[in-house]
């Protein structure tokens, strides 16, 4: 039980707000992106700087409180908030500093990817991120970072140069290839297991205006499109990324009315090569089969990154199931189409994200992220704004995953995973798991940071 005096002393050490149950802001402050998550923390510390984070970590450790670290609050199972513990909310720490000469970008631990894109775009730079700009930099990066630029520039972690962190014992350290290199290895894919990252230093890549957007085909064409896609994307030039999707055309502009609410298959392309070459690059794609809807064209990178934001506002119900996939055979395609036809709501979808480009040029053991030999990261998400559809979303996603899991790998991308148990985490980290447990023991032997896809300290 927390004493009033302990809370008062903690509050006195913070420059940011300390929010408790009963405060007017409490219910808003404990909300995360996934509306299925309804947790009630004992306290929420809105940290404005590193000193606040150090105080928060020390307080949680001394008071034996469960800790959750919140950046953008987008995590699939809502790891940004916990029941009865302390939320270390980094959302006030959203600074982004671009060094155009060195082409580096220093990002605050609570920044969103939209903040980064906004700051880097004027300099013709970008960092590989996800596909929704309201996603937090911290969570996405620490789990790996798959998105529109994966085939061109790798995962987000492949562009990470250093992190500043507060460890479980309250120490503030930098981790990079030269300093605390074991920790730097671990945070690149190991999630929030090792401490609170207060800033990320990335290298920027030359990205400004892409030739990008969705291309949609009829659901009846899905088997043919998937067979063509599996061949194309595994041999595609490095400057093109494209993830496959089953989707329902949103019922509004800019989509043509005759396609509204229609279940279709599609590929969301992102080509970052010279625009003058784009038409030539896309010629074989368009020649394969004329799309029912072709929205691919020149688009500024930040616009591409935020294209899906309006479809997925905070508060929707989300249920996720995921796996890594090495190959997509005809049987698997048939099952995909069978379940893709049954999308339970217009927001529900299945994505196959390629990870066979630049991300695959890094060895499986070079960072904690170990599935670089897989071809895709698959995710099935049941999504809707209506909480009453929770069971429908969950059942569809589980049934779909159950059918496809035999065709997949044992592990999944941690950022797509639900609470699936210790063995699933082990499967996901594979041969890197043992090393991760040793590093965990070195930096967090009492497992203070355990409200995550937890890596237990080695015994």
């Amino acid at each position, binding site marked *: 039980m927390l004493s009033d005096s302990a809370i008062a002393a903690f509050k006195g050490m913070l420059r940011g707000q300390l929010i408790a149950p009963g405060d007017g802001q409490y219910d808003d402050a404990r909300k995360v992106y996934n509306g299925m998550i309804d947790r009630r923390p004992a306290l929420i510390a809105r940290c404005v700087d590193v000193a606040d984070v150090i105080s928060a970590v020390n307080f949680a450790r001394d008071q034996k409180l469960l800790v959750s670290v919140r950046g953008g609050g987008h995590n699939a199972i809502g790891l940004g908030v916990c029941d009865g513990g302390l939320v270390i909310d980094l959302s006030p720490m959203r600074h982004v500093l671009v060094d155009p000469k060195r082409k580096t970008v220093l990002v605050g631990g609570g920044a969103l990817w939209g903040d980064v894109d906004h700051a880097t775009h004027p300099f013709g730079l970008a960092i590989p991120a996800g596909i929704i700009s309201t996603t937090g930099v911290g969570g996405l990066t620490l789990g790996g970072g798959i998105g529109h630029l994966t085939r061109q520039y790798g995962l987000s972690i492949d562009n990470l140069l250093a992190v500043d962190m507060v460890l479980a014992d309250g120490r503030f350290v930098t981790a990079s290839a030269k300093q605390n290199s074991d920790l730097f290895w671990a945070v690149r894919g190991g999630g929030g297991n090792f401490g609170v990252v207060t800033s990320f230093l990335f290298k920027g890549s030359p990205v400004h205006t892409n030739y990008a957007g969705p291309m949609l085909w009829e659901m009846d064409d899905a088997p043919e499109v998937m067979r063509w896609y599996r061949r194309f994307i595994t041999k595609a030039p490095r400057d093109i990324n494209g993830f496959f999707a089953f989707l329902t055309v949103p019922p509004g502009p800019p989509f043509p009315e005759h396609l509204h609410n229609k279940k279709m298959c599609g590929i969301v392309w992102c080509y970052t090569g010279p625009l003058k070459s784009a038409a030539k690059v896309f010629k074989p794609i368009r020649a394969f089969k004329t799309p029912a809807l072709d929205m691919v064209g020149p688009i500024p990178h930040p616009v591409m990154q935020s294209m899906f934001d309006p479809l997925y506002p905070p508060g929707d119900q989300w249920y996720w199931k995921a796996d890594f996939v090495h190959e997509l055979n005809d049987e698997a395609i048939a099952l995909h189409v069978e379940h893709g036809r049954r999308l339970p709501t217009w927001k529900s979808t299945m994505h196959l994200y390629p990870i066979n480009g630049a991300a695959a040029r890094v060895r499986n053991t070079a960072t904690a992220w170990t599935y670089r030999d897989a071809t895709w990261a698959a995710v099935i998400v049941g999504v809707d704004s209506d909480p009453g559809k929770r069971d429908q979303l969950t059942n569809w996603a589980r049934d779909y995953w*159950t059918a496809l*899991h*035999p065709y997949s790998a044992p592990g999944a991308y941690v950022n797509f995973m639900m609470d699936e148990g210790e063995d699933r985490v082990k*499967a996901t980290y*594979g041969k890197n798991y043992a090393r991760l447990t040793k590093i965990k023991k070195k930096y967090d032997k009492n497992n203070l940071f355990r409200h995550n896809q937890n890596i237990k300290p080695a015994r």
Partner: protein
Amino acid sequence: MAGIFSWLGLSAREQEPDSPLRDVVSALDRLEPDRARHLARFAYLLGRVAHADRHVSAEETAAMERLVRDEGRLTSDQAVLVVSLAKTSNLLFGGTADFVVAREFAEEAAYDDKLALARCLFAVAATEDAISMAEETEIHRILNQLKIQPADLTALRVEHRAHLPGLKSQRQR
């Protein structure tokens, strides 16, 4: 033959006539050296999977004995002893030995032999109806080292889909 004894963790002293391992050594001694090494590695890798969840059941042991007997064309008694030794070796060495044995198997075995081992690994793991996540992970580690083609691995997973971790509980919903 000294190589196989030392690889199996048997010192010269352990090979004395009264050693409890004498029969195992004798069983292997009757095989061609290359065949004996192949069999020892085969049994060791089966043991890795059976041990993955830190528990080797009687059913798993029986399955390993059957597979080793068929693979090595041994008598049932010999198979029992070889499996017993492989289980012990796995417990004693692990880690680096796991890597080395799989690498040696990968180097000496033809692709069809590797596939045969893969089938046996799944068979051992599935003996108790459900393959545990730990067993599945260990199988994938081994098969990755043996460079089993994704299409073949997928076929094996599909064949054993009823036993894969996560799927059994889904089916029982």
